[in-house]
């Protein structure tokens, strides 16, 4: 606060408009979520008759039914497996690649870096058809690995570039002295680069986790078995099927939203930092 004390306050008109815009945005963000939350505790008849009213006698009935009917337990487990495996793999593959590209004096590094940059432009939808055909032929359809591999691949370009800009900043001298001491590169990576990169690993992991948790398309296309669905796919399909059971729809949506609100509360600072820095590159 001290450093900005010499800066005059914004004029009243700006401050008044700022309040109006901020409050409007905040209400639009939070009110639908709160409404969904308390409505999910109402029985169906009450939802239809008094759409905006608070529940008379809140009950978790909708939750227990949605959970079993929608098979959401197994989907939650799948989501955790897909997300965790893909996130850990992406982070270490990207960090390894960044180490190779930043700290080894080979000309091909420029080409590899360029190739990863091009990847930022490619979209899932441009390759989904051949990828589907390839997965059918390789027997990867309806397998976990068939879902996890594309998760990793599509997250690699951005992760490699984030890791690269960090690893470049690690002083060469540290690595050179380890080389002189006779350390192998594998050792240098695990005992020097990984610990020094802790901040960027955290950023990559959180962004990667968010991306993979909310991923929809690959599971949607590459799996047909209910036992392999992730939470977003299972909930979308379940909520879409419940034409008149509004309570079940609401409860299943809350089950999809709540874990991310918890995640957000814990990692809000890192998320803001990660997304904020994402565009500082150029």
């Amino acid at each position: 606060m001290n450093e900005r004390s010499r800066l005059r306050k914004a004029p009243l008109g700006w401050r008044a408009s700022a309040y109006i815009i901020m409050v409007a945005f905040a209400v639009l963000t939070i009110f639908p979520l709160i409404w969904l939350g308390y409505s999910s505790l109402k029985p169906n008849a009450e939802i239809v008759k008094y759409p905006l009213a608070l529940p008379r006698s809140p009950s978790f009935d909708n939750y227990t039914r949605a959970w079993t009917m929608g098979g959401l337990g197994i989907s939650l487990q799948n989501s955790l497996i897909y997300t965790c495996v893909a996130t850990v793999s992406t982070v270490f593959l990207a960090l390894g690649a960044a180490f190779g590209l930043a700290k080894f004096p080979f000309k091909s590094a420029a080409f590899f870096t360029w190739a990863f940059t091009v990847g930022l432009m490619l979209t899932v939808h441009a390759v989904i058809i051949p990828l589907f055909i390839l997965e059918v032929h390789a027997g990867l359809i309806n397998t976990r690995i068939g879902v996890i591999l594309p998760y990793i691949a599509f997250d690699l370009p951005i992760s490699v570039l984030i890791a690269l800009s960090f690893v470049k900043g690690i002083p060469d001298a540290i690595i050179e002295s380890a080389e002189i001491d006779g350390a192998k590169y594998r050792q240098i990576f695990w005992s020097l680069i990984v610990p020094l990169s802790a901040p960027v690993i955290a950023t990559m992991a959180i962004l990667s986790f968010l991306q993979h948790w909310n991923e929809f398309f690959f599971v949607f296309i590459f799996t047909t078995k209910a036992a392999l669905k992730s939470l977003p796919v299972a909930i979308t399909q379940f909520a879409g099927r419940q034409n008149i059971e509004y309570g079940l729809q609401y409860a299943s949506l809350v089950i999809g939203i709540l874990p991310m609100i918890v995640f957000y509360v814990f990692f809000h600072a890192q998320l803001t930092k990660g997304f904020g820095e994402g565009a500082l590159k150029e």
Partner: protein
Amino acid sequence: MVNTLTKKRSYLSFVLPAFVIYMGIMVFPLVFSLGLSFTKWKGYGPMVFIGLQNYVKMFSDPVFHIALRNNILIVLISVFGQIPLGLLLAYMLHRQMVKGAKQFEMLIFLPITISSVIVAQLWNRVFSPIGILPTIVRQLTGNGEYVMKVFESKTYAFVPIMFVLLWQYTSLYMVIFLANLQRIPNSVLEAAQMEGAGEGTIFLRIVAPILAPVAFVNSILAISGSFKSFDLVYSMTGGGPAHYTDVMALYMYNTTFVFQNYGYGSAISIVIILFIVAAIMLTRAVTKKFNQD
């Protein structure tokens, strides 16, 4: 150098795993996709080479036109809605025009963490006859029969989707601009105030130009993101009614996986990529010209 070979081997052992996965899953299929786009194929049986026919067909395909129009609407709402609004919100927060700026930032950024397909379902409930919006309208106007008809309108069916996009992604740009605003030294704004510049002048003439490169990078992200739209639209309307809300990726999906027209589907996916590349090159050219003037 004795150990150049070992060094090269280590180098490749670090770079290649990521590179091979990336090439195998993202780049190699793209070539395959290009090849498929010149064929007529049902996903099984004989594959017939038909040259550019799939691409020619797109020109006169009314559904493709609607999908393209809707994709362009998404580009417009991103570049002229989310980004300027995000900049304005960021500036207001940065200048601490409201009390509890930190809390507002935290609330407004929240939707970024929720999966688009679930966001779409949430807003469908808000807009439904027993949702928040129609209920409030009924109570305010006394018209007990009111329901939202916009979804059935050929011209306006896409508007609610654009609103939800604005709702979910404006805060992303807000956060990016906020991070960059914090790097502008306070002395710059102080000097402007000393010279008597008003708030509007500072915002438009000083802050906006400084952040122009950031806005440019964000526009690229927004444009390429716009052509990728699938999840939200699929979950909200499925492209209906009668394709009014179709977008290219969704049309590609239906053509290929529902109607088994793999060749035409591939051609649409190649066109999506071409639009992204063209949009990025155009933005780059315009910005270059802008910087020269």
